[in-house]
């Protein structure tokens, strides 16, 4: 009796989340999959089954180039957020002893989310623009003779914008895993004569690997689908898969957009699986 009710209780507890997932994640994806096989007549779509949408994607080097460009952003953003995120998390975890200060500083990292996307993007112009603060500073210092054009509306700007926005997704999980490391392990390593670098390499880094993996999954999945930052910081001149899909949706080419979305989803899943193969994140859960 108690056993049966316990089982029932488990199911009931899991039910809301399962329903939400089915309704708003699984069902939509299935719909996209179906639409991606529909026919597109140029002006409207017809239910049917055709591989034309996929054929169009795989036979065009635009899709390939766009995916490669997106990978480039993923790699650059991942590397930059990992470096910055790890340093910040390390500092917070090991150099700030006061718990309250620690939490306060951690919350500071969320500042980029306090303003709307549009406002944030507009404010990059006075900073990085041709007559912006950075350029006028460099000009006044005599370091450059001509304003640097690549500061804004370039790949550099896209990566900068995304690192600025998404760094927190790297900081949070790494900070979390660093905080869970038993401090006695570090003391033990020091007692056994390990240098600071050795302690880091042999103890801290392996123990924080799950945090890195989770952060990496966040970054990879976010950047793979990015289109707002790409458009605004790239000045519309930079390509990403998300932006490609957005343009197609904007022109009501749903089946093509759906096919691209399916491929994007598969590629992203492969990347996530690859990360999971490298690091066992179960320790973290």
């Amino acid at each position, binding site marked *: 009796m108690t056993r049966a009710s316990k089982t029932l209780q488990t199911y009931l507890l899991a039910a809301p989340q399962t329903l939400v997932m089915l309704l*708003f994640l699984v069902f939509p*994806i299935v719909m996209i999959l179906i639409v991606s096989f529909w026919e597109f007549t140029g002006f409207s779509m017809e239910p049917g089954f055709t591989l034309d949408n996929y054929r169009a994607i795989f036979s065009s080097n635009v899709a390939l180039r766009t995916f490669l460009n997106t990978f480039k952003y993923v790699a650059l953003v991942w590397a930059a957020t990992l470096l910055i995120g790890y340093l910040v998390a390390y500092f917070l975890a090991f150099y700030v002893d006061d718990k309250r200060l620690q939490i306060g500083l951690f919350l500071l990292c969320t500042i980029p989310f306090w303003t709307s996307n549009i406002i944030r993007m507009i404010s990059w112009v006075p900073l990085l*623009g*041709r007559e912006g603060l950075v350029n006028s500073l460099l000009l006044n210092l005599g370091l450059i003779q001509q304003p640097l054009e690549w500061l804004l509306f370039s790949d550099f700007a896209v990566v900068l914008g995304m690192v600025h926005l998404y760094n927190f997704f790297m900081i949070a999980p790494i900070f979390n895993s660093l905080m869970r490391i038993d401090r006695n392990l570090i003391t033990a390593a020091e007692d056994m004569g390990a240098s600071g670098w050795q302690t880091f390499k042999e103890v801290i880094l392996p123990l924080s690997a799950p945090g890195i993996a989770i952060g990496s999954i966040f970054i990879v999945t976010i950047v*793979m689908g990015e289109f707002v930052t790409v458009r605004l910081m790239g*000045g*519309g001149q930079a390509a990403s898969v998300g932006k*490609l899909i957005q*343009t197609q949706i904007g022109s009501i080419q749903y089946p093509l957009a759906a096919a691209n979305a399916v491929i994007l989803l598969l590629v992203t899943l492969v990347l996530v699986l690859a990360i999971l193969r490298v690091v066992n994140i179960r320790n973290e859960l």
Partner: protein
Amino acid sequence: MTHLSRRKLLKTGLAAGAGFAVTRCASSSTAPSGTPNNPAPGPQVNTNQIKDVNLRLIGTGVSQINEIRNKAQEDLGFKMEMRALSTEENNQIAITQPGQYDIFDGEYFSLPLVVPSGNLRPIEITRITDYDKIVPFFTEGSFDGMPVEQSQGTAPYRVMYVDGPDSKEFSSTPTDYATLIPFQYNADTLGYRPDLVGREIESWAELFNPEFRGKTSILDIPQIGIMDAAMVAEAAGLMTFGDKGNMTRAEIDQITEILKEQKRNGQFRAFWKTFDESVNLMSSGEVVLQSMWSPAVTAVQSRDIECIYAPLTEGYRGWGGGIGLSQNLSGIELDAAYEYINWMLEGWVGAFLGRQGYYSAAPENAKKYMSQAEWEYWYEGQPASEDMVDPFGTTLAAQGSVRDGGSFEERFGNIVCWNSTMEENTYLVQKWNEFIAS
């Protein structure tokens, strides 16, 4: 209903593709706003009940203005809800969510996409009081023999009529059934900063002039951007078109190659997609010469920055917007919608939009509501005899200044192409993406 979920699901699915809920914080600003909670009223017979009618409008920000809604509610006695959307969202909702609107305020170039969906109800022209006062270019394609009569692309009169009350096919000759009733339109061209350019811009070709390398911009909306690009390429003698408004694949290939080459050479500083982006690019000086919409020019000017909406020798790119009816409408709501259309042509709205530089479909009606000075400045191209103030209190032109491009006839009559949805639309979008990705 299936349409509704299709779009929603696609959006959600993209989110899923990109990862999980956390990833969407970046895109929330572009998501459509919540749908109006608006129960459909049942059949009604009592005419007094017109005050219970609540019409739902979708349209672009140009005319989805609270002042217009309030005045309409006051004059007509029923309620309206307006949703301001981007051109793209407007089309998407018109096509995929017919249950979400009663009145469609859209552009003529959207019609080759929207009309085949069957979501628009052909308008009975006999019910439009001032139909004969509409500028004849819209109704029959004529305009005093001016160049606009030969204009290319999705010119309004080409998609003005359908064959019958249930038809989804355009009619090339006038019928009794209209797709949209026009109420506003304009002649678009390049805008520039005279202080940074230092001389007069007189040709579309200047957009590709190496003198402005890294300081120009065009729109990143394929159906509009391609027309600007075509005007430039033609003016610069880089290529010719059989019909700019309906390019062949070979022509699309060629123009894309030209655009790619310009991009490689660093001709463009950025591309813009929304009105405010173009204003920011221009007022910050990042861009000195670009394709622009007329209110964007006035927005730059209102920041005390000089900006000229250049009259160019090759002519203008035109656009036109109008009101269409949803298939949902019936009974008293349909009557109310017709009243609204008639009200839009009656003159008050024409004058309201005229003070911002747009033209009214029935200018003589708008004239009734404009002052002599306003009419002379906006329509006749004469020097302003007093400061020109828009409906929101901003001074758009100082006393003595003349409208860029001059009179209505000079500007409208010299439209040579329109925003266009071509037969090769799919191919165009594909090549446009290629250009962006290059």
